[in-house]
């Protein structure tokens, strides 16, 4: 009751705050206080709601369907806390909380001086109202008996929860979603500034206000995206860090637009141009966040992603559509309403070889990348199917080359000038260094033309920025942020070239204790050892120990496989050896247990077929299903017995036998049959196989074991099958992402300082 009441309450106060602020905007200044008051109430309401949900989770209040669905009593504190947002209802809650927190800082910021407070806050609180509406429709506070009416008695308290999806049970769920949602939420601020400035019809100062927020979103969203990449790489065992999956794309597209808009904003600050561009980009970035939410939350992409999309129900689908349509409508209306004023804003500078022109071209290129990815991600809505990941790689490679080149060139150019001589002179140092290193790379194997060009462009921008960073560090430390961020991007590009284009992969079957060579390493599978995961005591997890040796150095890698009761399937986690220049990545594929019967003991027979093995012949007549129904409930449960009726002939006798297989939870036990008076042979029914019609329909596999021989038979060992891969220079990629974030951070400090001046 409390939870639901709180959601209704903050929804109402957010709406009231929005209306009060809007009336203030219309000129009735005395409503400003009401707007602020209602916002404060909203923030208190949201934080209380979140606190209440967290309390319900921590105290295991399983009468709430959400808590029951997402958590259980054995989860340790960090993972237990992350069930707050592991489900759909909770992730909307997280988004709302983050938006509220951003709102508190935003109000504090806009209420100081003339910073468009009524306009910005009326839009901002409207966003909160919509998040509240979604939480009303998709409440995390539904009781189990409300969620399953008629099935669960009113007032029933489940003993334990269902638990967290094992795919999510790792460190990254603790920090990845909050980071991503903080990025999404903070992007509301630049959006509100853009709309606010249109409402106010004043275009000179809004970018100064929104710049720090935009940089903050760029930094946080970028960080979140990278964490997602590391999660995929290090834990999920997808083999890569980026799969062009809709969920990944939908946070990447807004990020590209943010970066584009940061650059044109800088151009506007210096030259006064690109006012319209910046308005449009800031608006587009947030609308794209809403659009991606729609894509990934509405269930509309259900069939085209490895992420599981849950259909949230018709009301939420509709609410999301209204949410995005309304804000698109507001944006378009605001622009159209001010079209005359916008047209009269002064035009851009006309010098092609000036920094602002190249910055603009760079932004257009970034938007082109965004558009390409958006088109690919949106496509499945129009036609069932997906877009091959190769499309994104093919299209974005030339774009990335251009971005790297433009970045380097733009930094060598001056604002509002066309000084060609100086420009060409400044090209010499970074370009010649880049060419030398690229030639070296070509020599060691980078032979693909476009890839070599990509390396050249990345190295070029790396050296340009490195030189500038060194100079800036000597003189004016505060401006060093941008150069550092660019160095980060250049490293990311180089890391991508190494780790994806020049990654090598090999499937390896490791027989127990038998060393095997791959990629210059000697790998030996030493067997599996069980270990306990404190977060998941229901399943027994196994480390599959692989000894890696090279040059008398030794290390142990331990990929994990286990049967998950929750997923009813085998879960696999890779293990990685991190070296300075590369990663050795072991992804478990499966464990092949030795066959109970050896290959030459088994025969496969169609109905009525007869085969001879050793000095006996076996004729297969028919199966004996008893009461077991083919494909019925018993078969599905894995507890049943079936037999094979066979006619066996040896030198003296002919006898009809019926060996059986007894399945207990899917595990077979083979019941032997013998010929009367002949102890030499045991007959076993190994399996029933149903093949395609072209391969002979149903067959029975029968094993004939010669007891005299079988005792001497050497026992085969289990084989651990892995996919091993080498990821060259992946450290460069991770280092690049870190440096990029650092660059953003330094830039934020600088823009804040500028603002405080």
């Amino acid at each position, binding site marked *: 009751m409390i939870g639901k009441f709180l959601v209704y309450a903050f929804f109402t106060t957010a709406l009231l705050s929005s209306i009060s602020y809007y009336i203030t905007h219309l000129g009735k200044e005395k409503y400003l206080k009401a707007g602020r008051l209602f916002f404060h109430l909203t923030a208190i309401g949201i934080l209380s709601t979140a606190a209440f949900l967290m309390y319900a989770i921590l105290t295991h209040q399983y009468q709430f369907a959400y808590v029951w669905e997402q958590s259980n009593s054995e989860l340790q504190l960090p993972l237990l806390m992350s069930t707050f947002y592991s489900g759909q209802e909770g992730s909307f809650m997280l988004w709302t909380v983050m938006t509220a927190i951003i709102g508190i800082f935003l109000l504090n910021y806009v209420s100081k001086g003339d910073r468009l407070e009524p306009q910005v806050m009326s839009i901002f609180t409207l966003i909160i109202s919509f998040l509240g509406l979604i939480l009303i429709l998709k409440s995390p506070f539904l009781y189990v008996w409300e969620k399953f009416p008629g099935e669960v008695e009113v007032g029933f308290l489940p003993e334990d929860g269902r638990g967290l999806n094992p795919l999510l049970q790792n460190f990254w769920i603790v920090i990845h979603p909050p980071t991503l949602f903080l990025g999404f939420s903070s992007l509301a601020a630049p959006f509100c500034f853009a709309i606010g400035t249109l409402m106010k019809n004043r275009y000179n100062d809004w970018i100064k206000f929104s710049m720090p927020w935009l940089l903050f979103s760029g930094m946080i969203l970028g960080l979140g995206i990278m964490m997602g990449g590391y999660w995929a790489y290090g834990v999920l065992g997808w083999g890569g860090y980026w799969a062009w999956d809709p969920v990944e794309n939908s946070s990447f597209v807004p990020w590209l637009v943010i970066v584009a808009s940061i650059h044109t904003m800088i151009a506007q600050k210096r030259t006064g141009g690109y006012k319209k561009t910046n308005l449009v980009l800031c608006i587009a970035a947030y609308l794209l966040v809403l659009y991606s939410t729609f894509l990934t939350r509405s269930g509309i992409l259900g*069939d085209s992603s490895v992420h599981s999309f849950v259909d949230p129900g018709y009301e939420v689908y509709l609410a999301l559509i209204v949410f995005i349509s309304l804000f698109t409508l507001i944006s378009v209306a605001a622009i159209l309403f001010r079209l005359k004023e916008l047209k009269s804003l002064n035009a851009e500078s006309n010098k092609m070889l000036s920094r602002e022109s190249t910055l603009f071209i760079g932004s257009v290129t970034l938007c082109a990348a965004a558009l390409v990815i958006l088109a690919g991600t949106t496509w499945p809505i129009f036609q069932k199917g997906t877009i091959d990941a190769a499309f994104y790689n093919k299209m974005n490679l030339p774009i990335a080359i251009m971005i790297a080149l433009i970045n380097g060139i733009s930094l060598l150019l001056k604002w509002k000038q066309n000084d060609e001589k100086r420009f060409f002179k400044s090209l010499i140092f970074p370009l010649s260094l880049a060419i030398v290193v690229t030639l070296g790379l070509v020599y060691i194997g980078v032979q693909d033309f476009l890839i070599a060009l990509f390396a050249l462009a990345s190295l070029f921008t790396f050296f340009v920025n490195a030189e500038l960073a060194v100079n800036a560090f000597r003189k004016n430390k505060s401006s060093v942020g941008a150069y550092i961020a660019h160095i980060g991007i250049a490293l990311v590009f180089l890391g991508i070239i190494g780790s994806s284009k020049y990654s090598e992969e090999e499937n390896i079957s490791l027989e127990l204790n038998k060393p095997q060579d791959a990629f210059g390493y000697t790998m030996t599978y030493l067997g599996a050892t069980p270990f306990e995961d404190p977060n998941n005591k229901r399943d027994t997890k196994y480390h599959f120990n692989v000894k890696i040796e090279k040059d008398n150095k030794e290390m142990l890698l331990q990929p994990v496989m286990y049967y998950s009761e929750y997923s009813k399937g085998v879960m696999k986690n890779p293990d990685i050896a991190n070296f300075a220049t590369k990663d050795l990545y072991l992804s478990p594929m499966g464990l092949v247990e030795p066959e109970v019967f050896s290959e030459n003991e088994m025969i496969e027979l169609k109905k009525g077929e007869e085969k001879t093995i050793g000095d006996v012949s076996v004729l297969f007549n028919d199966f004996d299903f008893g009461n077991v129904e083919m494909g019925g409930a018993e078969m599905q449960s894995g507890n049943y017995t079936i037999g094979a009726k066979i006619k066996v002939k040896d030198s003296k006798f002919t006898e009809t036998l019926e060996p059986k297989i007894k399945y207990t939870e899917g595990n077979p036990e083979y019941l032997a049959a013998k010929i009367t008076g002949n102890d030499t042979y045991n007959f076993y029914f190994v399996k029933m196989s149903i093949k395609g019609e072209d391969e002979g329909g149903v067959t029975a596999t029968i094993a004939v074991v010669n007891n005299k021989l079988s005792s001497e038979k050497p026992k085969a060992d289990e084989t651990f099958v892995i996919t091993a891969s080498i990821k060259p220079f992946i450290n460069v990629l991770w280092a690049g992402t870190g440096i990029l974030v650092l660059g953003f951070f330094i830039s934020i400090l600088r823009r804040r300082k500028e603002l405080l001046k």
Partner: protein
Amino acid sequence: MSKKSKTITGVLIILVFLIIGFMSFMDSKIEYVNFAEAKERMRTVEVKGQWLKEKDSKFDGSANTFTFYMKDDFNNEMKVVLDGAKPNNFDVAEAVVAKGKMKDGYFYAKEVLTKCPSKYEADGKEVQQKKGG
């Protein structure tokens, strides 16, 4: 450069980009088809259907392939060879989507996605289960 020639250059670049983009886009489209249609198409497609559990399925460690039988939504049966191990959640999947193409009479899948909506949407019975059950 005059403003006019600048605009023309810009428009030309965008046009070339759009054309390349469109062509590569049509090239990368992966259609959703059934097995009968998959036989006619030589390119990579996606087929949705059910895993036929009662039929033979096997992981071949040396080739690193998982072979199983699948029935599409139009009841066409097909042997599917997946390049890789049995996917997570395969046993409880309500539906599976195989992405690949026909090869020598069977469907060679580069990737198999599993769809398990029912797993996440629990029912009332499960709520009343005892601990550890």
